[in-house]
């Protein structure tokens, strides 16, 4: 579990010919998906370089949150140095803190900037594909400016290859844009849930601004103005901005199309529409008053309708403010302050670079395989689209056992190819009393009920039969192959079988997005 995806020893050839070779290939490789030139980047952030300019691609290609393609290969970490917040959101409850809880605003322990810097070095040395350090709370980084910027300063000194980013509610953003730029932070995320104060009043009960607590519509108006002003100031300076929006059915779900237009026109690079998390046990206002989150179909429909000239992020895992690892995993438990302080850390930039060069090779091979598979689809015409769930632990391969998967990645297959459209968590719920295996199976079926197939490295007979019973084809013949290549190959067969009459294509139902707290296995 603790070992990196690619074994480090396989590339430990200091100064050897193998490393030179890799570096050479890395230099020649200017980004995945460029050589094919299909010109049909369905999602610029998703399809490798796609239609991004070389400068932008250079900034995002190793950033798991800004590039879907990168998130299969590169990891990030958050350090919880910013506990204070200056606004109250109805989907957040700062009082509740459970170690098994996984959602924004929750951490196990706060860190000082010095502890955070040590932790970054420890993680960077253990996880060489960790390329990004973000500060995302658990409060708001810009409500704790001294701690946030001190942390950036320390890390920029000791680990200069690590990208710095931060995620803010935007209230204090205009005051700090120049400082952000001076620390070379070139990725900033702003959470913008509305541009209409009447809608904002239903999401934010209050803000604290200039020594005063503002409430209701007035609070939302100030917040919205500051957010949009901050966004404009950042994009003017060439800093990439991602906008996060929480989709709250009945409150801002229709309105987010307008938010999308507003942030697009101000130069935001990526829009991340996330489902509301509102389990009653979290004790949030929305959790307690029964406000529901969206279904998988509702979320996808909204994301699809906003996807135009702007990239949509669909791979966000709504992680904790102290998360460590690939987006789908959380290794924060390995890096408690106690563990980190006891670790002897030697920052070895060269071996990190060597490791990342191998990752680049893997990405290149994956992209070439996808392109080759796509070419076999040339001339194929069909309106049929299917969703496929994939069990993976990274590297863009189908390399996870069905029974071990804590999440499934969802790909949409069509004649345009394979496109990442989301993911579903399937961790064990806090649910006493049920027969464990049956409960887990039905949880998984509800989570991927909209999929025609699930791709796994291996699966037992019983779950395979249950899935089959629910109309989901459990497929292990692509074990350890590349995901996108396999999805396209499966889709081609699927069309063939429709034509031959072997299967009848029908619409699948909706699926559930995980809500409850879970017990880490």
């Amino acid at each position, binding site marked *: 579990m603790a070992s990196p995806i690619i074994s480090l020893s396989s590339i430990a050839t200091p100064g050897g010919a193998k490393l030179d070779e890799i570096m050479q290939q890395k230099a020649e490789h200017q980004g995945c998906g460029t050589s094919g030139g299909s010109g049909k980047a369905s999602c610029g952030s998703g399809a490798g370089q796609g239609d991004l300019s070389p400068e932008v691609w250079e900034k995002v290609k190793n950033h798991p949150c800004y590039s879907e393609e990168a998130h299969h290969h590169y990891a990030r970490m958050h350090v919880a140095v910013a*506990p*204070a*917040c*200056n606004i*109250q959101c109805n989907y957040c409850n*700062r*009082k509740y*803190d459970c170690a098994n809880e996984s959602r924004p605003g929750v951490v196990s322990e*706060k860190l000082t900037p010095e502890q955070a810097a040590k932790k970054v070095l420890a993680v960077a040395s253990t996880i060489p594909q960790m390329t990004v350090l973000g500060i995302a709370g*658990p*409060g708001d980084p810009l*409500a*704790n400016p001294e701690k946030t910027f001190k942390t950036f300063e320390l890390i920029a000194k000791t680990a200069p290859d690590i990208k710095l980013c931060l995620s803010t509610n935007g209230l204090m953003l205009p005051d700090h844009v120049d400082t952000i730029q001076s620390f070379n932070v070139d990725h900033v995320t702003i959470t913008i849930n509305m541009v209409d104060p009447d809608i904002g009043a239903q999401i934010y009960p209050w803000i*604290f601004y200039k*020594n*005063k*607590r503002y409430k209701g519509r007035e609070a939302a108006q100030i917040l919205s103005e500051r957010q949009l002003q901050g966004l404009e100031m950042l994009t003017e300076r060439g800093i990439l901005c991602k906008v996060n929006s929480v989709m709250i059915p009945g409150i801002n779900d229709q309105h987010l199309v307008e938010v999308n237009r507003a942030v697009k026109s101000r130069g935001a690079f990526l829009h991340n529409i996330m489902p509301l998390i509102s389990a009653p046990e979290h004790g949030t206002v929305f959790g307690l008053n029964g406000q529901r989150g969206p279904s998988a179909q509702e979320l996808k429909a909204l994301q699809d309708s906003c996807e135009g000239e702007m990239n949509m992020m669909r791979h966000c895992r709504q992680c904790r403010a102290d998360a460590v690892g690939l987006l789908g995993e959380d290794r924060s438990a390995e890096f408690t302050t106690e563990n980190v302080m006891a670790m002897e850390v030697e920052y070895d930039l060269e071996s990190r670079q060597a490791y990342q060069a191998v990752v680049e090779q893997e990405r290149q091979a994956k992209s070439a395989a996808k392109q080759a598979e796509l070419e076999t689809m040339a001339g194929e015409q069909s309106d049929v689209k299917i969703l496929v769930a994939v069990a993976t632990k990274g590297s863009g391969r189908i390399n996870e056992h069905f029974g071990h998967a804590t999440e499934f990645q969802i790909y949409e297959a069509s004649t345009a190819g394979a496109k990442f459209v989301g993911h579903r968590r399937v961790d064990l719920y806090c649910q006493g009393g049920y027969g464990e295996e049956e409960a887990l199976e039905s949880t998984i079926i509800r989570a991927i009920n909209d999929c025609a197939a699930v791709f796994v490295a291996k699966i037992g007979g019983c779950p395979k039969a249950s899935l089959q019973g629910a109309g989901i084809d459990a497929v292990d013949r692509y074990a350890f192959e590349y995901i996108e290549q396999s999805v396209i190959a499966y889709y081609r067969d699927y069309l063939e079988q429709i034509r031959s009459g072997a299967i009848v294509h029908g619409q699948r139902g909706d699926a559930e997005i995980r809500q409850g707290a879970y017990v880490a296995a």
Partner: protein
Amino acid sequence: MAYKIIASQCTGCSACEPECPNMAISEKNGTFVIDPAKCTECINYFDEPQCVAVCPVDDTCVIDNHYPRYSA
């Protein structure tokens, strides 16, 4: 009177500490405390007590009746 912080409610988020005009707030065992000798209830500084206004948990920064009313 001075304000006090109800420790069992305090999340330890530190939001109040830098807002206090009297530097009366400090951390103690993971939560925050107000020094009643320094607290002026923000009278003559702000329209409302800053710790109350910024605290994320309602009814956590409250008047401490053990102390006489502050007079400027």
